[in-house]
């Protein structure tokens, strides 16, 4: 997982509420076999509308997305996080997120920042003309206009994002604990290994 310490850049002033994962990435994109390349399908339906922020050259390549309430609701498809990552987004800022989406985003090195609606409104305004700065170490979102918004994050997630540590690597570091469990169970419930494998 790529490290995330601070992100500075333009932000898509998106703002839409209840964005479900079908909006982020429609179902027909689920037939891929790679995490890469899904950016092309991100917000596919919205991008058919003229004047959408995703095709506005002003915001091209922005690393930050500002959205409305309940971002990432709907199905558990991890493709939504992959699509955002492939689009170059490292931070999504919204008043609230679906739990599953937040988890999927985190597992893919994307930071989800929860801020109150007033802060979102202000950042939406700034984003139209100027960059936004997100600092994970100090847990703040700041602008060049003295705006400063603090946010909360689970300490474990912060630790992983700052260090670029992936969960699998962390669990594999504890392989000896898993070995011990397996050895114990092999004694207690030996029938657990399938009869034919």
């Amino acid at each position, binding site marked *: 997982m790529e490290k995330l310490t601070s992100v500075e850049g333009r932000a898509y002033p998106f703002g839409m509420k209840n964005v479900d994962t079908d909006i982020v990435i429609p179902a027909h994109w689920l037939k891929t076999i790679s995490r890469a390349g899904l950016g092309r399908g991100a917000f596919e339906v919205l991008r058919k509308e003229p004047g959408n922020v995703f095709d506005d050259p002003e915001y091209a390549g922005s690393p930050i997305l500002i959205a409305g309430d309940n971002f990432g609701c709907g199905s558990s498809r991890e493709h939504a996080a992959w699509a955002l990552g492939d689009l170059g987004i490292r931070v999504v800022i919204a008043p609230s997120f679906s739990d599953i989406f937040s988890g999927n985003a985190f597992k893919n090195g994307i930071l989800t920042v929860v801020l109150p609606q007033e802060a979102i409104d202000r950042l939406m305004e700034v984003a139209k003309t100027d960059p936004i700065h997100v600092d994970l170490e100090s847990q703040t979102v700041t602008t060049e206009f003295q705006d400063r918004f603090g946010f909360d994050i689970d300490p474990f997630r912060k630790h992983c994002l700052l260090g670029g540590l992936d969960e699998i690597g962390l669990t594999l570091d504890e392989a000896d*604990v*898993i070995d011990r*469990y397996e050895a114990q169970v092999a004694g207690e419930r030996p029938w657990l*290994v*399938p009869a034919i*494998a």
Partner: protein
Amino acid sequence: MVKLRTLYEKIWDAHVVERRPDGTCLIYIDRHLVHEVTSPQAFEGLRLAGRKVRRPDLTLAVPDHNLPTTARRDAAGNRIPIADPESAQQLAALERNAPEFGVRLIGDADPEQGIVHVIGPEQGFTLPGTTLVCGDSHTSSHGALGALAFGIGTSEVEHVLATQTLLLKQSKTMEVVVEGELGFGVTPKDVALAICGRIGTAGGTGYVMEYRGSVFRDMSVEGRLTVANMSIEAGARSGLFAPDEKTFAYLEGRPMAPRGEAWDAAVAWWKTLHTDEGAVFDKTVVIDAADISPSVTWGTSPEDVVPVTGVVPDPESFADASKRAAAQKSLDYMGLSAGQRMEDVAVEHIFIGSCTNSRIEDLRAAAALLQGRRIADSIKHAMVVPGSGLVKRQAEAEGLDRIFTAAGFEWREPGCSACLGMNPDRVPAGERCASTSNRNFMGRQGPGSRTHLVSPIMAAAAAITGRLTDVREWMDKKEGVAA
């Protein structure tokens, strides 16, 4: 004093590898089922990181979601190419990844191939008291055998492949009690729909359910699979049945189940897997069996359930404003209006299949109703898709395929089929399907498709009349039809 525990807590405790200070536990996973849609990126991740599958012997792969349900080999035994290049690519990826990582693959034309949630129990891969995961939300099905089974995302699939564990927080517990005797024509599917209707699709969120009471004790293992399958439609990632003599009888002799002394040892442990008398659930839901009727859905959520003899509800009758708006949107999508009798709703498509209702008992029940009858002229397409190759063979040995085809149904190869629009089996926009599947979401059976969830015998009755129909009227006229 020993702490009184629920079944869920007993299984959880037996799988804790490590407990962290914040309550998160590293949980050991005994069984991992893999299919072609949610696994390619997980295997890709392993490959990129130079990791291997920790326990290929506890992992079983099978294609189901994308696979067309038409013939897969020609007369000479050559593979018939899959028209959709993306489906073909996902299937090819599974066929490449499984051997590369040493995972057993049941191939697309193997007699054991089928829907991942049908073949797990059928092969005896699913066992009581195990933790079982799969990158699919209907993994809850396996709870019917007393396995703690739940769906996971692709990163979690990769985590399980690499470590055979998952980091989880313990869920709350909910008992769903249905006491009494099910009425004539009332099936396990109707019980599952009744639960969705009663508690809503978010009612079980954050909980693991346990199905308790005489109705579930008396229910066959296959019926329990239908009920557990739809736990997720009521919001619960898992739904459990305590293993009992029926469970043991179902599993004994299955290819991957323990044998001999190992079997005896396993049964001895499984017999301890029940909620202790006096153990407390975080929530209890009680439903009287007598209140459950043969049911249909009218909307675009599995909680939109009414008795088939009922009418489309008036959106204005819902107390909460967001529900009123959702109901109106559903009715607009479904092309229905408030007060319309469900039995007046004409359907053009019939789908008997999916991980909810594609096992042999489902097919027997539907065939018994269709014996000697024909589908209505107004039905454009009726299809039976057995849940596995073994179900298909069994049905053919019993002559069920001939009953279905004589009635005007197509008899297909096993797969997920028209349950979701990922393979060629779809319902056209604006057309209506009486379907034995689990989700009536907008566009689920294809863009613009309209789905009415029903039991297999209700689907058969709708096929005969060309409209949603109270199956009891047809059962009265015929001897020997079992619900």
